[in-house]
Structures are given as C-alpha cells and as structure tokens.
C-alpha cells in the first residue's frame, strides 16, 4: 500500500489545482463570504448581547472558530462532494489509474488537495480577521500550518465517506449527522467548559474540530494553551489513521 505512493502524487494534486485555477471564482469566493458574514453576524451582531468570555470580547472569541470551521468545510466538502463528482460523474480516477499513477497516489493526491483548499482558505481569510482586529500577529500566521494539518484530517475523513456513499445524495448524512453537530459542539460559538463534563470529554476524545478550534484560539488571541501539545499529537495521530482508512476503503470501492 505505502510502497505504491511516489512523488507522482503531485500530478494528481496538480490536475486539481489547474481545474481550480479555471473555476476559482465560483469555488472560492463563497467560503470567504460565509466567514465574513459569520464574523459580522455573530461577532458584532450577537456579540453586543454577550458579555466577554473569560475577559475576551466575543468577536475575538468566535473569530478563530470561524477559521477552524472554514478549514473543516473547505477540505471536507472538497473530498466528499468534489471527489465524488470526479470519481463518479467525471470518471477522472479511471483516467488517472490507466496511467502509471497508482490508485493510492490518486487517493493521497485528493486528500492533499483537500488540505490545500483549507490552506488557501486560511491564507485568504486571515488578512480579513487581522483587519477587523480579531486576530493577533504574528502568532496567527501559525494558523496556516494548522490549516494544513486540519485539512489533511478532514480531507481524509471526507474521502472515507466518499468511499462509503452509494450516491451523491447520501453524502448529506455524514454532513448533518457528523459535521453539523461538530460545528456547534466543539467550543466554537460558546466555550466547551459550559457543557456538562462528560460532553467535554466526549468532544476532546472524538471531535477533531474541538482540537483545531482550541489551537486556533490559542494562536489568534494569543493565549497560553497548556493542552496544545496534546491537541497536536491527537490531530497528527488521527490524520495518519484516517488517511490509512481512506486508502483502504477507497481501494475496496475502486479496485474491482
């Protein structure tokens, strides 16, 4: 499995990048605007009615969560709906594996591309947050490598669902059963500490977004994060495991 992965992965990535350059206007402006609206509505609209959270103004509290959610969405949607369209409707994977590119390289290339979308998103949205004064420099620059790690994880998670889904419509299930609850239960819009203790443990045990949000918040405020190392290790291990799972399940689907 691993021996079938070579630098040819970059060609799979490159193919997606080229298509992205052709279609970036439709594929990229929406998430940026999404984030902007969230920041305005929550940070400044709702924020007027919210007392500061642990001494932090609400807009500053919610800004890193918006980035974390954007990272999740950019990579997750890319490797679910995006990859599914390439795999099922455009037969792109079939064309690729007829060349010296291996199926493993196609899968890893897709995950890398999903992570790239998360990075591009972060690079574009970060200046906006800085402009609004809700993300501090230079520590917030570390959001970029964080986006890469989080993007790899959510890219791999998305691809597992793509390997499983019978049709494009059934991809809505993981989205509303997993992604949406995670979006609200990961210490994003309110602190995790306000949840019952078992739920807090649950969040840190299984919700990747909880870790990404807590790391992002430590970077934008910035503030000391005693558990940062735990979160980084958790994310790295999860990324590795889920990537292996994605390769396994996608191969089972595609190699017939």
């Amino acid at each position, binding site marked *: 499995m691993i021996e079938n992965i070579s630098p*040819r992965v970059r*060609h799979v990535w*490159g*193919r997606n990048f*080229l*298509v992205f350059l*052709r*279609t970036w206007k439709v594929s990229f402006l929406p998430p940026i605007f999404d984030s902007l609206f969230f920041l305005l509505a929550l940070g400044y609209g709702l924020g007027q009615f919210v007392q500061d959270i642990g001494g932090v103004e609400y807009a500053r509290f919610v800004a890193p969560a918006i980035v974390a959610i954007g990272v999740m969405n950019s990579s997750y949607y890319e490797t679910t709906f995006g990859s599914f369209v390439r795999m099922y409707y*455009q*037969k*792109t994977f*079939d*064309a*690729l*594996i*007829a*060349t*010296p*590119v*291996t199926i493993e390289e196609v899968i890893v290339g897709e995950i890398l591309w999903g992570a790239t979308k998360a990075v591009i998103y972060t690079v574009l949205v970060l200046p906006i947050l800085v402009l609004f004064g809700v993300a501090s420099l230079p520590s917030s620059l570390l959001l970029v490598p964080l986006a890469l790690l989080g993007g790899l994880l959510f890219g791999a998670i998305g691809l597992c669902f793509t390997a499983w889904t019978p049709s494009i419509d059934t991809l809505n299930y993981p989205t509303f059963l997993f992604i949406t609850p995670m979006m609200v239960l990961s210490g994003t819009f309110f602190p995790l500490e306000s949840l019952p203790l078992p739920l807090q443990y649950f969040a840190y045990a299984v919700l990747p977004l909880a870790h990404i949000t807590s790391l992002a918040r430590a970077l934008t405020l910035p503030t000391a994060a005693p558990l940062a190392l735990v979160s980084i290790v958790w994310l790295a291990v999860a990324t590795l495991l889920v990537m292996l799972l994605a390769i396994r399940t996608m191969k089972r689907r595609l*190699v*017939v």
Partner: protein
Amino acid sequence: MTTPAILAEGLEKRFGDLMAVDGISFVVEEGEVFGFLGPNGAGKTSTMRMIACVSPTTAGRLEVFGMPVEERPREIKALIGVVSQENNLDPDLSVYENLTVFARFFEIDRAEAARRAEELIEFFGLAEKRDTVIEALSGGMKRRLTLARALINRPRLVILDEPTTGLDPQARALIWERLRALRARGSTILLSTHYLEEAERFCDRLVIMDGGRILVEGRPAEIVSSRMGRAVIETPDDPAVIDCLEREGVAFERFGDLVHVTTDTPDALVQRLVAACNPSRLSVRNATLEDVFLRLTGRGFKE
C-alpha cells in the same frame, strides 16, 4: 522467439458469483490488430481492464510485453494507451490542457508534452478546437481527443474499448481512418467493438466471446469460411420452402422471417433449390462475420 505483446493463459475474472472471464487463453503478437467481439456481458471489457492493469486478475497467467500484470503494473501502464468505453476527459479543461495534463502522469517533461500535444491535435483534426473547453465538443470530437490522449505516451500497445460506439457514421469513419494510420505505424492495437463489418476489415485476428469464454479465434476471413462457408442463401420463411429443404436434406437456420442456408457452392445449390422448392424469392450474398457471430452467440436478446 520474440515476446508477445499479450499472453493470457487460463485467465479468470470473478465478481462474486459471476464468472465474467472464464479461463481464456490467447496470444497477441506485437504489431497485430486484435479484436474482441461478443455481446454485452461477454467479458470483453473485463479482459481489457485486466490487461490495462486496472482490474486485478482472479486466476490464471497474464503478461504484457513479458511482464506479469500483478508484479509490474506501473511499467506496463507506461507502455500502453487506453481508450475506455466511457468518456473520462476533464470537462473543465481545454483540448490542449487535457493532453498536457495527461502527459504529466507519464512524467513527460513540459516541452516534450507541448510538442506531442500539438502533434496529436493536428493528427486528429482538432486544431480549430485547441483551446475549446471539452463540454463544447461534439461526441465525435471527444472520442478523437480521448484517442489522442491515449497516444500521448507513444504507447506500444493501444487498448480501445468500443472506440466508435454511439457515434454517427461520419465520426466513426474518421476514427477508423485514424486507427488505420496508427496501424500502419506498427502499433499493436487491441479493440472491442460491436461493428462487425468494421472489425472484419480492420482486425488481423479476433476472438468472439460469450459468457466469459472464447468461442472462436482466428483471422476474420478464415473464421467466416471455416464456420459459415462462402455464401449465405436467403429465402423467406414459408412452410412449403421449409418442407422442401427438409425433403432435400439441406441444413438451414431460421432467423425471424428468413431462412438461411450456408454453402461453399452457392451456384449449384441455388439452381437445385430453385428447381426443387420454387421459393417466392431467393438471394445469395457473401457470408460475413456477423453471420458467424449470430450463429455462435444466438439471436436472443442480450442485456
């Protein structure tokens, strides 16, 4: 002895309970045009997908240019070009980009890829559409581009799965014409098709498959003459004629409203039948591969 382009021995492909390819053996020499004919579900595509190293074999031996497909798929894939049944071009990219992006998968450097892309665009008559996005191309142009793309790595073996299906006659003629040019360059070509007349003219050798097995293999003309004889006599299917044929002891087949009698000596037999049976109508034509195909695979509906 030179290494054959493809060597298959007892090759099998199983999908669950379905035996898609049921122990077939054949050899394709380099420079040959080899055809796979057969009804849908005969196992043609499964066989081609195994040769192209995209579908693992279930059992048997399969070598391409002397390399076993399980062991050296990457090297084999570098030497072949594949045109699959389904269009899998990149819809968001232009004609030119479809070719150059594909070249990268073969590690062809940019300058060389650009040169080959221009050359292929010219060869397949796509120059006017060079910068057009794929979605705006006609079915025939998409097929030509798929074929062009399969040649970007200058393959020693080209695999074509129904290259002309779904195209209008003009587009089909153009594809065959380009394939003949390719054959003239000495490329080994493996193809499946439902157009038997075209296969008969184009293939050096072919197999007719059904139910995962090879029913017959050989040169088209030899297959026709050994299986059908030289000619087919057709008369309308009416009871008097049937009685007469049975009386005369002439073997015949009934196909819908026609009766077929195959023979190597059409002139003598026609005279005899006209004298003995006095059919309302009678015609003689050369036996074709289609006759063999229908005799071997049956005339019933196939999915």
